[in-house]
């Protein structure tokens, strides 16, 4: 049997080590009773005081029942029924991130985001960032209204001043610059072009912090189109990715995860994924084969692949240096699946992207897996244009700068040049909705509304449109960016009317059947998307002539590899935080990184071999240049490289995100005008300090028992139960003393396909949003008090230096022989007649016996008053201010807010089960298959989670759980879980 390990210590020692240093110290337990601010050992006196107080408080609280009011509407809105959820189709646009969504609102408050299954781009999937975006709406740290010089002002006054100044600058032939991220909203683009027309001599500069500009430039040369193509991972039998984390962060991860996982079905044809990278990324963790490389080796490796392919396709020779890794196998595989493969690179170097394009052309992938008709529009910015702007600003050649939704004072590597230039600009206006490092030194703040308060449209891919509509009125005195621009250009229409006009004029003709503009617009608004004639795509692709400039491999410069001693740094964005836009979102901050399982921090990832060499331990603090940053020893990190996440260490984003982690944007550099995501480091300096992480890795150890089962595709083809032999044995040998329970009517269950799950963390946040799971903060996570009902376990297998990774979402298993139920002294947890393990909060009095007896460790205890629920005040632990009136608006009214001192856990979203059953009874029918979706299954971008009735013989769930791959976690304990796992099938290259 394979040995699985979760961290390095447990690999080395036979027995899995529980890290003792991470346990709360003894005194700390007593400190629970005293003031959370200062941790002092509490005395017996304090305990008695507390007892006396609580009895007194209970008595007082009971004496008087509160008179509660029932306040109806004066005039009831037509569409709104109190207590019934309404869904609005909309779009999530945050910088380069896009998702077509449905917004769930209850009594006028958006409370949950679901994916829009009709969308041709994201197909009902979401990401953790999308799920968490609803919390950003209720961020009290957002700008509350227009400001001038940091003093609150009024829109009219500010508008007049800005218009006056803009006009003056235009008259004096000055330069006005509008600085935005890539804008892919057609109407906003039209507004901006109107703005540019009105103010003659003004410029529009697009700037993306995470840059893909080398790719754009290379595509311009290779294909004559300065666009990012439409990658089709669903059409590729073989994906070779050189440092591109396309399942986690690269370009359009939701879309790519949907496509990729559709090909991870071992019953049908399975694709291959070969990942060459330095950091252990989410994509690398899911790869069938992962090769560790240094970033400086990318060119050499690609050239060798090019050489091999050129030789066999065009029978020509090319020069290539010696390859650092053996690429023969990759080349062979690529040639074997010509036209059905995909080579991508995450590098921001033009020559590498040119090389990648040429290889793809040789393989005949253009027009097959790389399409151009509906190319990606979410990344259009060129680094050079921003660089030119900064230079101009430094020269004082820019008279007015209007910034929206970009934060170069934080994300630009040469931020000093930018801030210096900003001081020389006469008129500085920021249209961003939240405080950030850039708009803190800007004269006028004209805050944008949150996307859930806005009208907008989007064209994330050419020809695929979607609409955004407000799901709530403006919470603050904010105005959306396009409205501000319209106002300043002197227009009297609102952006909504402008957009409506734009759609009627430009887009209605794409749908020949529609004649009435109102019905056209309303039908699009209802669906959220408008995708006319998507089927035509492929025909035109064939006519695209690649290679406008003939590719010449000799022009490729191979930089001399740095010396052995030099460390190479790879900067990456994390799945949760990205470039740091949503840094003030406590849900995202508390989402453990899929691979390292660390939350609330960034760190230096370093390989175990290097750690030994430099005598480094986990949590040691290093000095890199001027920044001090702790170390995390990461198996799978390429030797000689270190990885650091961007997007942390913000200073002015709000109370939650300020000073979380370390800011490393300054360490980036540019090469040929494009910002490189790599760097070099001569030496590592130890500071001698130790910095503790909030890590969820060692907290939920399953004590070394094998529970992730996997097999190779070949073995699976021969025997569907490959790797899962134990299951049959257990089925036969498990016996219980108790009478077997039956669930003849409904028996709710779940299947989680480990082959499909990529471990992206979307389900964790979806569950948190649906079930009012509290945020506990870094300190509490460090004390093993995190509250997530659904966690994703990550296990390593194989060599310490180059491990394979498996992910396993673990939630309450809803066991039929549940160990937790037997030990509860008050029957607060018991079994329902439909096979659910129920948790009754109002009965629970917190013995935590169930938690101790649960072999899966999925029960969570409310150590403190995290949610401000319950009658007793005090003991509130809410560092992230999640219990304020505004933040609480995100709570789901269908799920109880748990008070201090009770256990909570996954309920299989019983509120959704109840709602669907009621609907069926009301409509006098049986339930449809997949009608009931839990929060985790509904938005899974990989379709890895399927929920349903195990008794329904025709359901999709039944098909999965009757397959040979089905097994249960720790089935030797005979707990008989209702959650079933399907073995992970890897498509190994032999």
């Amino acid at each position, binding site marked *: 049997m394979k040995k699985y390990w979760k961290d390095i210590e447990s690999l080395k020692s036979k027995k899995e080590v529980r890290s003792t240093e991470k346990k709360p110290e003894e005194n700390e337990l007593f400190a629970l009773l005293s003031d959370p601010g200062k941790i002092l050992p509490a005395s017996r006196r304090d305990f008695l005081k507390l007892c006396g107080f609580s009895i007194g408080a209970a008595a007082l609280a*009971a004496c008087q*029942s509160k*008179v*509660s*009011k*029932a*306040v*109806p*509407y*004066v*005039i*009831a809105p037509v569409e709104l*029924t*109190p*207590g*019934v959820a309404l869904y609005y189709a909309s779009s999530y646009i945050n910088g380069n991130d896009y998702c077509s969504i449905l917004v769930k609102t209850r009594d006028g408050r958006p409370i949950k985001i679901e994916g829009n299954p009709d969308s041709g781009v994201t197909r009902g999937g979401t990401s953790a960032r999308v799920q968490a975006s609803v919390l950003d709406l209720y961020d009290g740290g957002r700008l509350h209204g227009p400001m001038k010089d940091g003093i609150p002002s009024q829109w009219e006054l500010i508008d007049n001043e800005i218009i006056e100044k803009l006009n003056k600058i235009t008259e004096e032939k000055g330069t006005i610059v509008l600085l935005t991220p890539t804008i892919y909203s057609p109407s906003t683009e039209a507004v901006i072009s109107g703005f540019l027309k009105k103010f003659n001599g003004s410029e529009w500069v697009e700037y993306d912090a995470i840059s893909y500009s080398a790719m754009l430039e290379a595509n311009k040369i290779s294909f004559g189109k300065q666009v990012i193509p439409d990658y089709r991972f669903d059409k590729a039998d073989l994906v070779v990715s050189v440092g591109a984390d396309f399942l986690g962060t690269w370009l359009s991860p939701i879309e790519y995860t949907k496509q990729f996982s559709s090909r991870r079905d071992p019953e049908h044809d399975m694709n291959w994924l070969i990942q060459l990278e330095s950091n252990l990324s989410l994509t690398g963790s899911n790869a069938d084969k992962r090769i560790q490389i240094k970033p400086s080796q990318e060119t050499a490796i690609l050239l060798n692949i090019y050489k091999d392919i050129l030789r066999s396709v065009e029978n020509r020779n090319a020069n290539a240096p010696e390859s650092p890794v053996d690429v023969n196998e990759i080349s062979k595989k690529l040639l074997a699946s010509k036209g059905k493969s995909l080579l991508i690179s995450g590098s921001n170097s033009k020559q590498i992207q040119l090389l990648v394009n040429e290889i793809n052309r040789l393989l005949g992938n253009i027009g097959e897996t790389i399409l151009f008709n509906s190319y990606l529009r979410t990344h259009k910015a060129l680094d050079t244009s921003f660089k030119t702007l900064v230079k101009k600003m430094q020269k004082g050649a820019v008279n007015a700068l209007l910034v929206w939704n970009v934060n170069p004072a934080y994300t630009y590597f040469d931020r000093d040049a930018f801030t210096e230039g900003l001081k020389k600009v006469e008129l500085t206006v920021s249209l961003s909705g939240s405080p950030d490092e850039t708009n803190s030194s800007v004269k006028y703040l004209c805050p944008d509304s949150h996307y859930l308060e806005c009208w907008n449209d989007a064209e994330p891919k050419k020809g695929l449109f979607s609409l955004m509509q407000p799901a709530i009125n403006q919470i603050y005195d904010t105005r959306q960016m396009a409205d501000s621009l319209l106002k300043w250009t002197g227009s009297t229409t609102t952006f909504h009317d402008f957009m409506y006009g734009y759609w009627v004029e430009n887009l209605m003709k794409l749908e020949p059947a529609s004649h009435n503009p109102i019905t056209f617009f309303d039908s699009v608004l209802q669906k959220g998307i408008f995708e006319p004639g998507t089927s035509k795509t492929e025909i035109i692709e064939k006519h695209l002539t690649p290679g406008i400039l003939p590719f010449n491999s000799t022009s490729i410069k191979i930089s001399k590899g740095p010396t052995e001693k030099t460390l190479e740094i790879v900067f990456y964005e994390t799945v949760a935080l990205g470039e740091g836009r949503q840094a003030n979102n406590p849900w995202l901050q508390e989402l453990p990184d899929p691979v390292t399982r660390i939350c609330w921090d960034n760190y230096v990832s370093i390989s175990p071999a290097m750690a030994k060499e430099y005598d480094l331990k986990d949590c040691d603090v290093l000095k890199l240049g001027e920044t001090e940053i702790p170390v995390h020893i990461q198996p799978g990190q390429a030797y000689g490289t270190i990885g650091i996440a961007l997007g942390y260490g913000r200073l002015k984003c709000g109370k939650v995100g300020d000073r979380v982690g370390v800011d490393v944007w300054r360490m980036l550099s540019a090469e040929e005008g494009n910002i490189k995501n790599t760097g070099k480091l001569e030496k590592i300096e130890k500071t001698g300090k130790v910095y503790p992480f909030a890590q969820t890795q060692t907290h939920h150890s399953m004590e070394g028992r094998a529970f992730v089962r996997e097999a190779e595709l070949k073995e699976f083809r021969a025997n569907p139960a490959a790797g899962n032999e134990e299951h049959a044995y257990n089925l036969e040998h498990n016996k219980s003393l108790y009478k077997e329970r039956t669930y*003849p*009517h*409904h028996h709710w269950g779940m299947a989680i396909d480990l082959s499909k799950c990529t471990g992206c963390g979307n389900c964790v946040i979806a569950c948190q949003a649906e079930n009012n799971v509290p945020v506990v903060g870094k300190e509490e996570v460090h004390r093993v008090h995190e509250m997530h009902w659904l966690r994703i376990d990550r296990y390593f297998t194989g060599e310490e230096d180059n491990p394979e990774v498996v992910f396993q979402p673990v939630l309450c298993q809803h066991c039929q022989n549940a160990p937790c139920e037997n030990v509860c002294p008050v029957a607060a947890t*018991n079994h*329902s*007649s*439909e096979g*659910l393990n*129920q*948790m*009754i*909060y*109002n*009965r629970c009095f917190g013995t935590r016996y169930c938690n101790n007896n649960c072999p899966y460790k999925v029960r969570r205890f409310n150590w403190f008053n995290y949610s401000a*629920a319950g009658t007793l005040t005090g003991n509130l632990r809410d560092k992230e201010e999640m219990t304020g009136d505004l933040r609480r608006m995100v709570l789901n009214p*269908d*799920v*109880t*807010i748990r008070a201090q001192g009770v256990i909570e856990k996954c*309920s299989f979203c*019983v*509120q959704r089960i*109840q709602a669907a*059953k*009621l609907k*069926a*009874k*009301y409509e*006098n*029918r*049986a*339930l449809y298959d997949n009608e009931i979706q839990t929060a985790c299954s509904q938005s899974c971008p990989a379709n890895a989670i399927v929920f349903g009735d195990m008794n329904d013989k025709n359901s999709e769930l039944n098909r999965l759980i009757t397959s040979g791959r089905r097994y249960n976690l720790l089935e030797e304990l005979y707990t008989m879980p209702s959650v079933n796992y399907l073995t992970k099938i890897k498509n190994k290259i032999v």
Partner: protein
Amino acid sequence: MCKYSHEGKIKCLLPLILLFFIVFLALSNSLQAQNTTKAQVTDTSKVQHKDTTKAQLADTSNDTLKHQLPDSLIYKKIIFTTEEFIRGERLFYGLVYLGDQLVNCAACHNTTVSDTLNWNPDALEISIKYLNKSAYDLSKVLLRPIGKTMKLVHKEFKLTAEDIVLIKAYMNKFETIGLKQSKPVITNLLLLIIAFILFLVATTDLIIKKIFKNRRITWAVITVTGVFITWILAVNAIAFGRSKGYAPAQPIKFSHAVHAGQNKTDCNYCHYTAKISKTAGIPPGSICLNCHFLVRNGTRSGTAEIAKVLGAIDQNKPVQWVRIYRLPDFVFFSHEQHVSAGGINCEACHGNVKEMNRLYQVPDLSMGWCIDCHKARKVNLSNEYYKTYYPDFVSSFKAGKIDSVMIASIGGKDCGKCHY
């Protein structure tokens, strides 16, 4: 032979007698408590007369005071219609809107036999005094009082002659039926204190003083008082937070008896979300307007109360009703489930609302109450949903093996059906 002296025996018996007294009081008290709850259910007027809510909205139609001559015809009226009688009653209990003044006779003049001293004459006394006098004499006392206290209390009463005649007509009722008897009330708290003192005395005696030689009696006192204290604490603890019979004053004197009873308005007309949502919903002002756009006068105090609704809509300020039925936050109850899917009448839980002038809470909303109903209610097996998922029940029902399936048999007792 008796070991103890005669004197000692009496000493021993004393606490026992006291104990019997307590038990007797407790029993009578609990019996009476039941009676009073019953009385509350049947006699809503008793609840209503506690109302001292000040009418807030000004009404100009009613403040002209007509001084009638003593021999005016009005005072000689003898025959009254039921409507007039009811108006008299409402005037007496202060339920009629009279501009900015507050006239509530029942506030000072008892209508029940009181166990406390009340220096004011009760309703019976007044009715006897004025039985053979003219209503004009009554009006003199009401409008031009002489006594010091009366001057203060009856200050600025602006009642019309008709009003006074009707009040007198109503009061005459007391002469024939007398005042309502109310039993002496000894609160549980008082009993608890006595029992507790007794318990303490007995315990102290047992341990320290040892006055009573007969330990058995001391033990008996301790046991009985102990049990009693525990029982009363338990009963009260269970009743914490329950509010059966809760009938708070509402900002608008809305009568379900008038709307649902007399005018036969369907419950779902106003509470239109009961069939489609978790909550039955308090009707928005716009629903009231559907009728009250035209209907602006009521037969009794309606005009003023309707004016409040209209005023709320004019000012765009919602009416702040006091919520009566309220479940704890950890309980999920869906009206849609019970009304639409279950087909349960509103009356099953809310009682005979059609006869309630002021709405009150009928059930105690305890979990036992919910479960009792789930055990006793039948499932509609003709629904396709049950046919699909409960074929075993449906077939044995058809075969005549069972005559019904209760909600509890299909999971109606599962915790997770309501608590999640």
